[in-house]
């Protein structure tokens, strides 16, 4: 640990090796994030980029920030992204056909222009002094130094940001809340509905999932009493994926014969 911390201030060879390996990989992952069709793949590549950034932070004398990056960004934010992806449609594919004319050319050229200009400007910029390194700033340890700064100079920003966090949480709750439009039906009303509905066939309610099942595979649709597969019994995601099996494969021979005789 000491060795690592001691060498952190110097731009020593280990850091160079780490940089020259991880940086191109991170950039490749970022480009991949752009190109892949499925959103989940993008999310995974994004997580990889975040992790590499965490390594960069640690390599640059910011261990606190590196851990926070892993815990907050990769752990919380990216997982949140994945959860929402699952909610919204993990299977949704972006077609690569561009609908807005000319935007691909505009975006790529503008962005490449930005990139080139940034690189040029950074290349021309000089600080007037060599990199100081954080050896002296981190003399008491990085966490202590950050804590010292945070709770003295930046305490006001700290408090405001915490208020912001609370507001964000409240906001998420408000946005996710869905109000019932109609009042919740009581048990009595449900019972009345069942018996006074269209026919007494539904009085006992529909059969629970799996009553008519002859198999317990999630990807095989249930059969309705007249032998047709019930479309509603299959998960939308599986349907979208196309991994739905035909139930007739599992039919027992005598049942099929029986069904044929009865008809």
């Amino acid at each position, binding site marked *: 640990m000491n060795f690592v911390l001691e060498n952190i201030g110097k731009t020593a060879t280990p850091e160079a090796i780490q940089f020259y390996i991880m940086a191109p990989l991170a950039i490749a992952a970022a480009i991949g994030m752009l190109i892949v069709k499925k959103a989940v793949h993008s999310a995974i590549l994004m997580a990889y980029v975040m992790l590499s950034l965490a390594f960069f932070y640690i390599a640059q004398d910011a261990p606190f920030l590196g851990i926070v990056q892993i815990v907050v960004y990769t752990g919380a934010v990216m997982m949140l992204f994945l959860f929402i992806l699952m909610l919204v449609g993990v299977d949704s594919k972006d077609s690569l056909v561009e609908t*807005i004319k000319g935007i691909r050319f*505009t975006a790529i050229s*503008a962005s490449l*222009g*930005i990139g080139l*200009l940034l690189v040029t400007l950074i290349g021309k910029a000089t600080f007037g002094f060599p990199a100081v390194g954080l050896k002296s700033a981190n003399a008491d340890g990085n966490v202590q130094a950050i804590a010292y700064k945070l709770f003295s100079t930046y305490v006001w920003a700290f408090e405001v940001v915490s208020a912001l966090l609370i507001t964000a949480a409240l906001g998420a709750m408000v946005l996710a809340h869905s109000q019932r439009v109609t009042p919740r039906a009581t048990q009595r009303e449900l019972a009345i509905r069942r018996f006074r509905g269209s026919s007494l066939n539904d009085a006992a309610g529909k059969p629970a999932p799996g009553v008519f099942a002859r198999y317990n595979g999630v990807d095989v649709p249930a059969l309705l009493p007249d032998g047709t597969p019930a479309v509603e019994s299959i998960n939308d995601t599986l349907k979208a994926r196309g991994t739905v099996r035909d139930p007739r494969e599992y039919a027992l021979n005598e049942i099929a014969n029986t069904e044929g005789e009865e008809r």
Partner: protein
Amino acid sequence: MIGYLIGLPLFGAAFLLLGGRRTNKWGHLLATGLSASSFALGLKLFNDMLALPTEDRAMHQKLFSWIQVGGFNVDAGLLLDQLSICFVLLITGVGTLIHIYSIAYMSHDLDRRRFFAYLNLFISAMLLLVLGDSYLNLYVGWEGVGLASYLLIGFWNQKPAYATAAKKAFVMNRVGDMGLSFAIMISFVTFGAVSFSEIEKHAHHASTAALTAIGIMLLIAATGKSAQFPLQAWLGDAMAGPTPVSALIHAATMVTAGVYLITRSNFIFDLAPNAQTAVAVVGAITLLFGALVGTAKDDIKKALAASTMSQIGYMILGAGLGPAGYAFAIMHLLTHGFFKAGMFLGAGSVMHGMNDEVNMRKYGALRKFMPITAITFGLGYLAIIGVPPFAGFYSKDKLIEVALNAGGAKGYLLGGAALVGAAITAFYMSRVVILTFFSNKRWDDNAHPHESPILMWLPMAILAIGSVTSGFLFTNGDALQNWLAPVVASHAEHAEHSELLPPMTVSVIALTLVAIGVAIAVFKYRAESNPNTPENVSIFTRIARKDLMQDAFNEAVFMRPGQALTKSLVVVDESIIDGAVSGIGSAAVGSGQMLRKLQTGFVRSYAALMLVGIALLLLAIWVVTQ
């Protein structure tokens, strides 16, 4: 006191115009009375002036202080001196006689009151013109007579042709008025003042170029108002007005305003010899022009109008000959006022008796039926051709003399032109008289020629007396010359001008030419009995009938290009200026349409635009930090 000269007829005009139909019954009497009182006042002022010594004869009256702008001060002031009193008496005297004549002439016209109102307006404006003590005051009167002329020529504007004639007169006058405006502007720039006395004092300080410019501009103004070449085309058409109008305005007074202007500006012209020569040349050209046109006109009024143009040419020629000629120009102006007004009133009397027929081809042998008219007309005729001892002999011969004595080639040309003009004048005036009063009767059976009532022949008789006696009175003992000398010849060098020919020789030559002209006319028309206009005439007659192609020339050179210019300006206005203005509108709309395409509603395109913006920002930073 002088102001009342102008104020009385002006009051009459205002009263009659504002009073309306209530004043119809006695309006004409009021107008005539006011004009007569102006004449009486003029006589009294003349009497006063005679009693004064020569140096004090100029009377000034300041009415009110008119313009005071910085260093430019113009008072509404009046100047009555020896020159203006001549005009005052002429205007009010002949004017009152014509008022009396019009009472009878216009007795059948429903708008008689309006006619008298306009006549009074004219009298007051013309008096203001001759009494103004500065060019600017003169200009007010100048415009006033132009307005009155327009109103009176177009008096019977139910006929579109008459209204057009009024417009033509006004427009051509306007061109001349531009000359007067420019003259006033140039004199203000040169002298800092526009009053006669100021300019006379400082005239010799100014450069010859400025004086020549002012002189040329004044000449343009005079050609406009006096129907001289090149602005002479309106006078023939102006005969569309009632005959008293032609007599008063287009014979005796308004058309002489140009001569007055040039004479009044003698201090300028005497110092700008080039301008003076131009004046003389214009006069010579016009006198020949008018004479030639007059030989071919069958309309009696148009023939007399051409004669007026020619006689004013004589006056302008005289005014262009320097101090020697001013007095004779004024003399001819005064005598011309008598005999030409008398002849116009006579023509009106003939028309009255012949059912308003103006074509001389339909007259003939009228002396038996209208004796008084014939006698008064005849006396005027003898005066105009210059037979002694009538008025025209004295004034015209003196003008011819001065022209010949002008020296060198100028003298030969101008004098020669004047002599030739005299011959042609004799010819065509004899033609008029013979065709009207002698030769054979050529009228239709439904014409009943009769003598005019007393209210009409009395003014004609008075004017005929003037035609007979005025010449002798003016010349006796150089009366008029001496009277006017303080105004027009005060600073003239009394050089011994060489006399080309002795005066008696000039008169003999002139009379011989006149006799030849009369003889040709008598020979040609003595037994005329054709009531229709002959068609197979020479090309010269045809050109003369068309006023020497003056209308065709004006149309081709001025009217058509002017109309083309206006049309092109309209096109420019519509397409370029309106086009530019609505083009701005369409550009705004068009750019709005183009910018609308940016509003795609797609968040991604907006984001792309933001990216482009950031790229440009970075580009700017990079450029700045180079």
